[in-house]
């Protein structure tokens, strides 16, 4: 059963349409991300689920409960929704100790003291904060405050966990580490998570499913692999990972195989189900281009940069500059004349104008 179901959700601020008819569902035990550039409306969707914003239109269910319905005038207050939430700036209350911050949701439920203490111990253990229970937030690092916020959100045993860019204030190293911890925590607790981020690497690494949003709309929903290998449109292709775009023309099609011709006259056959014809845009991931002295398309290495586990090139071929990433076993010099081969590509309709 779906733990969160959103149908035709819209949110207007004055005349600005921040969220435009969004529909999505988060299953039980699922890690679901909303991914998009800043201002795309992803946080607004999350805040509508939390009840912190009232939708202009649409319905939201959490579990079996309808928490929002514009038609029936339902807007359940945040405080009685079965949610846990973690904010971008953690929102750990500075005047309370870690203990009091995390215990607060249970105190509100007026549970007996012993039960609160037992659950508190569990929650602090889950996030690894047992030792810091008596500290104040000002004595904690960003990562530790993050865990306090997480424990506070989990302790009331909500039906869903809502996370609003929780990692964006951490430094790069800690962010990587927290990705795994979050994923692991979700496995252990089995709690469904709705996760908002603008960081595509984060979304790809953690999600079971993700929805890519742009300008208030959902552009594509899928697994990380689907989104990466089969982007629905040019926006997704560009936003997720690195992508080269080269103009071309579709010459012919046999079944699912299309033959594309570049401006230089080089031809390429591409697996494609788009049904496009005529002018098109060929999208190629940097790792789907291979370099060799004998490659079919002549090119010249313009810039080479060392990327640790790989080597990053900018090469010029027939007037176009392409980004290429190869294993470090093959290293070419700047200025070297080579050939390149395209392993696979995706076709999109040509740019208007």
């Amino acid at each position, binding site marked *: 059963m779906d733990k969160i179901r959103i149908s035709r959700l819209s949110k207007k601020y004055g005349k600005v349409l921040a969220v435009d008819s969004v529909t999505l569902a988060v299953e039980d035990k699922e890690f679901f991300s909303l991914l998009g550039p800043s201002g795309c409306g992803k946080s607004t969707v999350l805040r509508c689920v*939390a*009840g*912190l914003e009232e939708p202009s239109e649409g319905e939201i269910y959490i579990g079996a*409960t309808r928490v929002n319905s514009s038609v*029936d*005038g*339902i*807007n*359940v*207050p*945040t*405080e*009685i*929704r079965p*949610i*846990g*939430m973690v*904010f*971008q*700036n953690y*929102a*750990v*209350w*500075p*005047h309370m100790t870690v203990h009091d911050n995390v215990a*607060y*949701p249970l105190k*509100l*439920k007026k549970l007996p003291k012993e039960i609160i203490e037992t659950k508190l111990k569990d929650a602090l253990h889950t996030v690894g904060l047992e030792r810091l229970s008596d500290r104040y937030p000002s004595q904690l690092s960003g990562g530790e405050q993050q865990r306090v*916020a997480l424990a*506070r*959100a989990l302790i*009331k045993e909500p039906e869903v966990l*809502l996370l609003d860019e929780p990692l964006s204030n951490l430094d790069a190293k800690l962010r990587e580490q927290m990705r795994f911890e979050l994923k692991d925590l979700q496995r252990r607790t089995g709690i469904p998570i709705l996760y908002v981020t603008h960081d595509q690497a984060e979304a790809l690494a953690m999600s079971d499913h993700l929805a890519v949003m742009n300008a208030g709309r959902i552009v594509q929903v899928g697994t990380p692999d689907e989104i990466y290998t089969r982007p629905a449109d040019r926006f997704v292709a560009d936003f997720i990972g690195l992508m080269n775009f080269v103009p071309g023309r579709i010459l012919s099609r046999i079944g699912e195989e299309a033959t594309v011709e570049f401006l230089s006259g080089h031809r390429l056959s591409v697996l494609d189900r788009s049904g496009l014809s005529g002018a098109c845009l060929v999208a190629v991931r940097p790792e789907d281009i291979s370099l060799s002295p004998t490659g079919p398309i002549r090119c010249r290495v313009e810039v080479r940069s060392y990327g640790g586990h790989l080597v990053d090139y900018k090469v010029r071929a027939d007037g176009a500059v392409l980004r290429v990433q190869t294993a470090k076993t093959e290293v070419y010099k700047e200025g070297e004349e080579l050939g390149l081969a395209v392993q696979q590509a995706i076709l999109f309709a040509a740019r208007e104008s």
Partner: protein
Amino acid sequence: MTATHFDRRYLLMAAVGVFVSLIVIYPLWQVLFRSFLDAGVLSLKSYQKVFSYPSYYRALLNSVWVSCATATLCMVLGTLLALLVIRTDLPFKKTLRTLLVLPYALPSFFAAIAWIQVLGPQGYLARLVLQVFGFATVPWSIYGAGGIVFVLTVHYFILVFITVAGALERMDASLEEAARASGAGTSQIMRQITLPLVLPAIMAGGLLAFIGALANFGIPALLGMRARFFVLTTSIYYALAIPDFGLATALSSMLVLVALLTMALQFGIQRGESRFTVISGKAVHPSELKLRSLRYPLFLLISAVVVFISILPILSMVLTALMRYWGAPLSAANLTLQNFIYVLGFETAQRAIMNSLFLAGVAATAAMFVGTVISYLHVKARLKGSRALDFFATIPYAVPHTVIAIAMILAWAKPPVSLYGTLWIILVAYLAVYLPFAVRTTNATLQQVHDSLEEAAKASGAKLFPRLRDIILPLARPGMIAGWILVFMPALRELTVSILLYAYHTETIGVVVYNMQDAGYREIAAALASIVMGLLILGNTILRKLTGGVAGF
């Protein structure tokens, strides 16, 4: 789960709305309404009266020219002092600044009393001048227009000083450095770069001084009435003594109109200034101007000014309190503590101290409480209609206190609810007077509390009252304490409202000091004033410590 969940915040807003209506909107409406009423019918008779009797329309003109003169002098004095104290390498600048701001922590009618002691016919300085130069009488008079403008200027120049000092501190030093690099000398830079850039601040400060002078009662009352020189506030006092409510309300409405016009102008200048991008919010520590050979002469000059306007009046007040009788020759034999002993044992004074403590304490607590609720609804919850609530609660800021006192008489001194002659009518007036200050402090405090802190409480399952109790109020507490003191201190020494509303047994400290002074018991008045002065300076120091120098003077 029911389909609709009643939002308790609207309940809170309704309660506060009723409160603001009762203490602000209804009383002020009464003033306006009454000014157009004659024997129960609408008429312009009261206004006709104002403009057909020279003594009344002269009061209006006097108010305007006295305030204009004060504002002009304040702009000159305040700007000069701000330039010297902020932008030059004068020694002991911090101390100078603290001392310059000190007199503003004391009530203006204390200043009037002190300056009467210094410059009045038998004043300390007057006697000194007579002795030294052998004049028969001193060539000035503290009673009358000149004295009023002088004391108003000494009291209100600080408003210009503070706004200009703030602008100078926020000004980007590179603007002046660029002028220097272009070949301009110090005086050219001052005239062509610095002054034009801080001109909006000078104007804004000048208008604040204008409003202060316009609304002031204590100074023209103590220095003007004796010389039959009336301004609007003292005319209103006079009209109430007749009593002629039509006349009093007509004069009040005109006073409010002038104040509102000035305030609108000031608001316009501030908005204009915010478009002035060169004066940014950040402090950039502008370079100091080197005074070189002028450094010590100017320091001596400023020290003399500081001693004259800040220290002399306070010394004079304490000295008078210690004198065996007013006008006694200055000698150790004539010094005594008996005035203090008398005042502390004097029943009316004791009662007044208790009354003032009660009024100030209750007014500060209630104003901060209501202010916090209004700020919460406006700044945090952002409910529909909360903006209007905030606006109405801030209205009394623009209304001179004399007018607020009249409003309370009109609204709450007639059946079925007659509070006249009780402490409650003064309390209601204090609530109206100090609510704007409370709301401003709590607005600023709650703006510092990030929205997500309350949202996290909601997500934790906290309803409205637990949220306020556990999260919002504890986080706002430091600001609320500072705000409480900020209301308590002026309320403790308040004169204008209580002089119009007091009755036997409901005197305040201000009323007793004023009446003692007026009846000629100057050394007794000075003793009580000295005690209050000590308390105020102490309170101010605590406030500055508490807020790290942000609040207080």
